[in-house]
């Protein structure tokens, strides 16, 4: 009996949340410390899994399986492969930095962290679940706390609207996908939700063609695929900093990941049939998101739409169904996760001090907030796909994959890089350089050492991955090879 590390990772946030709920609400400092300890614990464990994942052996590792409901073939079946391991680490990192960034939350911090941890545990669960039912179970758990986190602690102006919109969209998506999953369950004839078994089901091509779209798009809603991306920028803007980080950093990956795991891996024929459509939608995502981001005045909306654009790249990579493209998409999930987490953290720090996110009302932030400025610039370079940073490592293979399938799409999508460069550079210049508006003078207090830890960790990861892609890419590749095997050869 080996140490059940994956279930410990999933359940440790829940345990942390329970401990928090049992603590008296006035002891805010103790509550924060407990929260940080929980997050650190999860980070260490996920890092341990990352380090100990055996790339040579590949496949699913750290497998755990407990019967949950044998009569319907549901089991608590956990395991990670090359695709989910980096995402596990990502979740750990975002959770850790999210807690650090939220140190200053003063309104009911106990409930805040408890909900945040519930969310985290759902996210962990989705990434490691090898059972279709459990995947849904955790997926829904991850979606819901979002509502309360945004509605209670969000930006007063739009939080109710945004929270409701977000929850409705995601709920629709997930239940539509759920119907597809149930159809798979009954059609396979195996009477099991075990995805490893369902992979071998050989569904008829007609079946796959019918069900691929609901399943893939149902999940991809959370990945922000056009035209179902509408919830995402609103949600990003309304959410409090840590939640935006989680939301853009991890939750959107959840959608993309589930779309890959359930949509493409279980219904490969359907994926092949519909790939051109997905490719098209994703291209719209990429280009449209970048254009819309360019005209935003609100810093958070800008980042929100840039997330739409970047998640489009992930979908684009998946839709190529080539090794390069999908590997890039896998890396892009990690890279984008870290990058947006950083963006939102930095934006949050600016907003906390300036009380505005309108780009024209900001300026000269570099001087009082050098850490924020520099890390924001690093994030910007990642998002432009600048070589030497993780964004390049991810985007290059994606475009390579697209070349192999539809060169004109590659050319079209590449336009987004120029647009991204333009709006990111403009935003950086207007926010961090130039003259500081009079009314802000003296209000910009320096950030705390803990904030620096968070910013440093996030930007360090992006640089490390950019300079040494081999710390992650081969791992993702092993996962993708398995996907390709299911897609039949190649």
């Amino acid at each position, binding site marked *: 009996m080996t140490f059940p590390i994956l279930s410990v990772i999933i359940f440790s946030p829940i345990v942390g949340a329970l401990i928090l709920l049992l603590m008296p609400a006035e002891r805010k400092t103790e509550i924060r410390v407990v929260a940080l300890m929980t997050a650190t614990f999860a980070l260490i464990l996920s890092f341990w899994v990352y380090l100990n994942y055996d790339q040579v052996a590949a496949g699913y590792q750290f497998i755990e399986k407990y019967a949950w*409901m044998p009569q319907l073939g549901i089991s608590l079946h956990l395991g990670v492969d090359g695709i989910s391991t980096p995402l596990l680490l990502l979740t750990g990192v975002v959770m850790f930095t999210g807690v650090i960034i939220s140190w200053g939350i003063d309104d009911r911090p106990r409930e805040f962290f408890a909900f945040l941890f519930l969310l985290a545990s759902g996210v962990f669960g989705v990434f490691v679940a090898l059972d279709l039912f459990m995947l849904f179970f955790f997926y829904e758990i991850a979606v819901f706390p979002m*509502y*309360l986190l945004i*509605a209670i602690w969000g930006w007063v102006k739009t939080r109710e609207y945004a929270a409701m919109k977000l929850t409705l969209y995601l709920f629709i998506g997930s*239940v539509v996908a759920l119907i597809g999953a*149930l*159809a798979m369950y009954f059609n396979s004839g195996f009477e099991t939700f075990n995805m490893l078994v369902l992979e071998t089901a050989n569904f008829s091509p007609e079946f796959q063609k019918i069900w691929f779209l609901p399943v893939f798009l149902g999940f991809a809603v959370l990945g922000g695929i056009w035209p179902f991306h509408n919830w995402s920028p609103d949600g990003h803007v309304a959410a409090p900093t840590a939640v935006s980080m989680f939301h853009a950093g991890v939750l959107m990956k959840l959608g993309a990941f589930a779309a890959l795991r359930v949509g493409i891996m279980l219904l490969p024929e359907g994926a092949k049939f519909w790939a051109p459509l997905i490719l098209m939608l994703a291209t719209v995502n990429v280009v449209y998101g970048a254009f819309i981001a360019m005209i935003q005045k609100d810093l958070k909306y800008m980042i929100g739409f840039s997330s739409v654009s970047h998640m489009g790249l992930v979908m684009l990579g998946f839709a190529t169904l080539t090794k390069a493209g999908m590997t890039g998409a896998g890396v892009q999930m990690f890279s984008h996760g870290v990058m947006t987490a950083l963006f939102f953290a930095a934006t949050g720090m600016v907003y906390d001090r300036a009380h505005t996110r309108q780009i024209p009302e900001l300026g000269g932030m570099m001087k009082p907030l050098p850490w924020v400025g520099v890390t924001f610039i690093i994030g910007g370079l990642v998002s432009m796909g600048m070589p030497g940073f993780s964004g390049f490592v991810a985007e290059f293979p994606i475009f390579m994959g697209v070349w192999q399938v539809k060169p004109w799409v590659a050319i079209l999508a590449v336009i987004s890089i120029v647009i991204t460069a333009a709006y990111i550079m403009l935003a950086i210049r207007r926010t961090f350089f130039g003259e500081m508006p009079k009314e802000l003078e003296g209000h910009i207090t320096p950030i705390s050492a803990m904030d620096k830890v968070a910013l440093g960790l996030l930007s360090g990861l992006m640089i490390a991955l950019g300079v040494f892609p081999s710390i992650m890419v081969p791992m993702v590749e092993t996962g993708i090879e398995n996907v390709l095997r299911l897609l039949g050869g190649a």
Partner: protein
Amino acid sequence: MFNSSMILAILPEILLLLLGLLILILDIVLKGKDGRNLGWVAAGGLLFILVLNVFLAKPTMPTDVFGGMIRYDMLGYVFKMLFIFGAMLTSLFMMDSEKLGNRGESYILLLVATIGMNLMASATDLIMLYLAIETTSIPMYILAGFMRDDKKSTEAGLKYLLFGAMASTVMLYGFSLIFGFTGTTALGAISGFSLPLALGVIVLILVGIAFKISLAPFHFWAPDVYEGAPTPITGFLSTASKAAGFAVLMRLFIGLFPPASAYAPSWTLIMAVLATITMTVGNVVALSQSNIKRMLAYSSIAHAGYALVGVVSLSELGVGSVTFYLIAYVLTNLAAFGIIAAFSKVTGSEKISDFAGMSRRNSGLALAMLVAFLSLTGMPPFGGFVAKVFVFAAAVKADMVWLAIVGILNSIVGLYYYLTVLKVVYLHRMEGENEEAHPIPLSRPYAIALSVLSAGILLIGIIFGPWFNIASSAAAGLF
């Protein structure tokens, strides 16, 4: 003739009757003083009955007893335990309800109604069934109109009585048709339907039952009655009583027209249409409610629609999933009404907007509300999620994907109004923002009942395996 299974088959009913008698005597002895303590007696007694029966009265082989009047099987057993559990928590809720809690007769009426439900779940003879339905209904009429000084309550009692009586009459007419054409009232012996007869029977009985479980378009009594009746009674009415109706529905229809019979497609189609209408009407109308009891009334109409989806699929999985759904639903809705009872006892209001700031007034109560409402929505890790998944799974398996999609669209509407309430609870502030000055104290019975229910909702939501086992073993008896 006589054997032990005859006693075991009606052991819960016997014990319930004894408990009722005990309360009657105590009520006389205490002469109305400290009547509230009778609630503890009732709840304690029901708990004892529940535990005892769980261990003693579990049937091994389905057997017909009392000359085929009653069938001693898992389906009946599961539902009986559910009713007793519901009655136990309802009596806890009743304790602190004005005019209800310190009157012995209210508990006795509750127990009698529970006996009726128990018999509904196990009756296999049309006459027995009818008697059971009336045994359930009459005490409920009285309980609904229990608060004589309250106009709404009186109206509720009268309305319920009138519509209930009419529904019973229609159903009785259906029964009489069966007897007239086939010459028997024993469910197992009925056979040889002709088409017009089958159609008439299906329609008449369905109308009767549709009233009981408030399916659209026979639901219009429900919101008024639910709103007017004392809140704990509303909880009982909307859960146990509805579950009893489903038990009858499944036993009757699957017994009369089994899946293999020629008429099965027609009644499932009728029910599928009814389910669609019910879900849609319930959810859409609930959207615009400003009174939380009316909102929950419509939501419970909608939930009847979801459960019906499972019945329609006409399979063991379907019936099992309905049973599971009802278990989850009973727990959840009881909790919801319990919370409202606790809230309005202190604030005297049932308006949704008055729930503003509740999370700061009593965070435990708000958390319980979160659990209950999310379970109603169908979010994991709460019971409602698993229940919904199983019901939809049954529909998908029966190749009724469209019905599952209707269900999904509806649960999204549901999500919206449940969230709206939670938003008020968690997000909005009281006028003046001084929630700390207006706490909502919870009396002990409420605290116990709500903790049990919240834990139960979580338990069946997470460790659903054993519960589903029970539900599917109940279903197995029908096929």
